Each structure stands twice: as structure tokens, then as C-alpha cells.
């Protein structure tokens, strides 16, 4: 596997406060990684370090570059969409296409126009005159027309309605992602992306709490809804967490055999948001 992002003991301090504490991760080609954490957990700091937007201590290599000192070279292979990285309001749609074509050697204007033809975005309007959904569509069309290796999405669909959000991820998977690319996503709407992720990282207070593939996550974490007569027997299997809802009890297990659990009731996959809550509130 080709390593696209590699961090060793990545640390970022703001005075006495450490936003990232000795983070070590490795992200490879062909992965879609969800970076999940509560507000202030260090997600954006980590993404800013990866994108060369902030200095850091420790070792960080993205596509073989030091992001902070070689950002302009790195950006030929890395694209990002962030809720705060908005397109300038004064620019016209036709101008932003021209600009990206002028500064990005891997941008294909025809491709971008192809994506835009499927939308109702007018070429002669300024970004300020477009709806929030249209601005994100335009940004996505620009990014998808760049032949980059890594795409970083930091809360890309914040403030969009559900239709736009669904279209956004569908389009990303169908028209953009392939095994040569890697996508790193942070979002609070975890449930909307868990089906597209190959890997997940949980971060809390600047530290990586969980880092695994979705396959491993699904294989090791399960939820059992036991039938009433089997609740005690299920409890004796050392569940990781016990949940009570509307008078029913369910148990979350880590590394428990599915066939064993099936004898006590319905076994379901654990959703990413429940896993997050389990791991972050369980200790």
C-alpha cells in the first residue's frame, strides 16, 4: 500500500494548551477515512496541519511533502473543501473556473463544466447571488475536476438540506473516488457517511482514541437486543456497555462471537455514532 499521509508524534500547542498530543497516524491510498470528534477535539487542527495551514511539532509527511513549508507543491495533489473555506462572494462563476484553470495544472475545465451542466448554477452570476447549496455544488464541481490524490473535507455539508447532502456524497463516490485517491472527512453527521467510509479515527482532546478499518469495526463491535429471559445471561458475557431505551435493554460487545450472541437475541451492527458515544463516554 502507498502511504499518502504519515504523522509521527504530531503535536500542536497554543501556549499551554495542546490541541494535538503526539498523534501518530498513517493514511494510505484508496482509503476513505472519517475523522470523528466532538467540538474542540483537535480535528480541524489536525486537518490544518495536513493541509499546511498551521505549523506543528513532530513529523508529518503528506504525499512526501512537509505541508507547512511546501504547501504550494502539495496543493497540486491535495484538494480541500471546508465549511469555512468559502468561495469569495465577489467572484463570478465563470471567473472562478478561469482562475482555477490558471493556477492548477491538474484542473480540467471541460470536466467542471460537465458537472455544472447538471446543476442550475448560472455562469454569469456572482457567488454572493447563489444559494448555500449551489456554492457547495460549485466548489465540489471545481474540486472533482482536479486530478488530485487526496481530498480533505472539513464539515463540507454544514448548513445544507438533506437532499444536497445526499447528492454531495453520491456524486463524490460515483464521479470522483477511485482506488488511486484518498478522502479524509470530518463531519458531525456521522450516520450519513458511515456507509462510505473504509476507515475511522476517533479523536478526543488532541489524542487518537480509536483507529480502525470499518471492516474490523463491524466485525468486532456488535449490539445485542436480548429477549427478556436472556438479559442476565447476556449481561454475564461482559458487555462493553449497557444501554436502556424505552424499557428495553441492549448490550454492546467488543470482540464477542456473533453466533454466541445470536443465542440470546437479535444481533445488529453497531452504528458509528453509537460506537463514538460508547468509546467517548465509556471511560
Amino acid at each position, binding site marked *: 500500500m502507498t502511504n499518502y499521509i504519515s504523522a509521527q508524534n504530531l503535536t500542536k500547542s497554543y501556549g499551554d494548551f495542546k490541541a494535538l498530543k503526539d498523534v501518530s497516524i498513517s493514511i494510505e491510498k484508496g482509503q476513505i477515512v472519517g475523522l470523528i470528534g466532538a467540538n474542540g477535539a483537535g480535528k480541524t487542527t489536525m486537518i490544518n496541519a495536513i493541509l499546511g495551514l498551521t505549523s506543528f511539532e513532530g513529523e508529518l509527511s503528506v504525499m512526501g511533502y512537509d505541508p507547512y513549508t511546501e504547501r504550494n507543491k502539495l496543493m*497540486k495533489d491535495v484538494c480541500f473543501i471546508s465549511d469555512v473555506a468559502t468561495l469569495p462572494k465577489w467572484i463570478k462563476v465563470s471567473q472562478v473556473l478561469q482562475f482555477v484553470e490558471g493556477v492548477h495544472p491538474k484542473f480540467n475545465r471541460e470536466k467542471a463544466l460537465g458537472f455544472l451542466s447538471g446543476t442550475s448554477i448560472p455562469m454569469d452570476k456572482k457567488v454572493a447571488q447563489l444559494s448555500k447549496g449551489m456554492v457547495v455544488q460549485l466548489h465540489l464541481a471545481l474540486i472533482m475536476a482536479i486530478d488530485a490524490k487526496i481530498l480533505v473535507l472539513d464539515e463540507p455539508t454544514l448548513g445544507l438540506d438533506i437532499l444536497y447532502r445526499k447528492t454531495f456524497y453520491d456524486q463524490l463516490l460515483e464521479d470522483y473516488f477511485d482506488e488511486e485517491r484518498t478522502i479524509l472527512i470530518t463531519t458531525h453527521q456521522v450516520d450519513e457517511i458511515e456507509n462510505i467510509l473504509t476507515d475511522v479515527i476517533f479523536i478526543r482532546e488532541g489524542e487518537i482514541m480509536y483507529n480502525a478499518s470499518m471492516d474490523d469495526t463491524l466485525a468486532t463491535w456488535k449490539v445485542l437486543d436480548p429477549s427478556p429471559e436472556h438479559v442476565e445471561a447476556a449481561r454475564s458475557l461482559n458487555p462493553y456497555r449497557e444501554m436502556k431505551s424505552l424499557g428495553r435493554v441492549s448490550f454492546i460487545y467488543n470482540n464477542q462471537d456473533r453466533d454466541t450472541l445470536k443465542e440470546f437475541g437479535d444481533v445488529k451492527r453497531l452504528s458509528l455514532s453509537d460506537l463514538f458515544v460508547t468509546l467517548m463516554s465509556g471511560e
Partner: protein
Amino acid sequence: MLASLTKINGYNPIKALFLKEVWDHRRAIIITPAVITGLFVLFMIAAVVTGTEVEINDININAQMEEGFAEAEEEGYTPSGIVTRILAGSTALLWIGAMFAVTFTALSSLNDERKDGSILFWKSMPVSDTQEVLVKLATVLFVIPLAIFPFALITEFFFAIIITIVGLVNGVDVWEFFISNINVPLLIIINIVPPIIMLLWLSPIIAWFMLVSSFSTRPPFLVAFAVPALIIATEEIFFNGSLLVAAIVSLFENWADNIGEGTFFATSSFAEPAFWVGLVVTAALTSGAIYFRRRHALA
């Protein structure tokens, strides 16, 4: 040709960065000089149509003109130099407008992008902070005066027509005294070289505006003037005199000393040590602006 200048086809980062600045500061770079030119032309037309005060019938105007030119020649001015400078003088309003454009473009150049969040979009493109800041500086120093050039020519063309009409009405030998003395190449040089040299003289101030624009979280206009004012006040209180004031005064004095010596600023300015000291200060302040742009992502 204009279409090929204003369109981007294919990878051409420097052109794209310059065009971005022109699009962003369209009001300062294009609309302001266009409006000033339009108003000036309208005013001149209105003055000719309605005005009668410019008629001077009771003197021998041709003799007066001849006498005036002879006196000027004794002082070392050629008729062509005088006429061309009179024409160039008609663009004064444009250059006053340009100084406002320069000030406000420099002050907003690295601030607006932080305020509206677009800095992260620009930073998502493979362009270095150094390229971005240098293009912004070059826009203020070169693009603003060059964009004024066509408007200056239009203004001078209409002014020449007005002078011709007024001259004809008053029985002046317009060809002898005026039209034959218009030195077009000289006029073009006067419209381009002195303004650029002037902005190079003032570049330490422009670079200071850009530095403030790159780090200030408060309105850059206030900070750009409040900080020097504080420094000067402190110097005056503790040292009974201000080095900063002396430096600024010397800058303007040196610039003024190099106006209108028949060299159109260029050669005499380049021989001035103060000119080069100013450019070194500009380089230092610009490095500061690059440093802050690299460091700060959002306001």
C-alpha cells in the same frame, strides 16, 4: 487583444493571480478612473457648450502666445514640452483618484480575504503565499497606474479638442501653437513612467499598508495610521524629535526633488540612495506581510 489579456486559457498562474486582483478590485482599478474620466469629459463639453467666458477678443492672442513661448524657451522649456505638460496636467484628478485607489487596495489586500474566509479557498490552490503577496503588491504599484493610462489618454484627447475649439473661436493659430507641439511619444511616457516611479518612491508606505492588512484584526485603516501616530508621539515625548517623521519627510522631499527635471523621474530617481533605501524597507515590510499570510488562516 484585450480579450486575450482578460481571459485565462490553460495553466498560467501569474496571469490568473493578476486577473483575480483586477476582478476583486474592479471598482478601484477600472470603475473609479472611468467615472472620473466620464465626469471630466462631460464637464469640459458642458463648459464649451454653455461657457462664453473663455473668449478673449480684445488682445492679440497669437502675439501673446508667441511671447509666452519665447519666455519659456529662455528658461529652458521647449514649446512641445510645455504643450505636452499642459495636456498631461488635465489628468490630475485621475491621479488623485488613483492615490485613493492605491491606499484602499493596499489596506484591503490581505484583510478582506481573511474576513470573508476566502483565504482558505485561495490557499487550497497550488500558489505560494510569496506569489500571492508579491502579485498584490505589483497590482498596486504597476496595474493601478497602467490601468489609468487609457483613461488618461482619453482625458487628454478631449482636453486637446476643447483647447482647439476654444483656440479656434478666439482666432489662435491652433496648428502653430498647439497641435504641432503635441509630442505623442512624450505624452505616453509622461502618462506611464512618472506615476510608476512615484509609486515606487511611496512603496514603503504601500508595503506598510499591506503589512497592517496582513495581521490586523481591527480595521486596517485605523491601525495603519494609529501605529505610526503612537510611535511619533512616543518619540516626541521621550526623545524630543521623531526619526519616523524625519524618514517620512525625507521620503517626500527626495521624491519631490526628482519631479519634473526633464528626466520624467526615472533616471534621477535611480541615482538617489533614498530611493533604494525605500525599496529595501518595502522588501522588509513585504516579507512581514508574507510571513503573516502564511501564519494566519483566518481573521
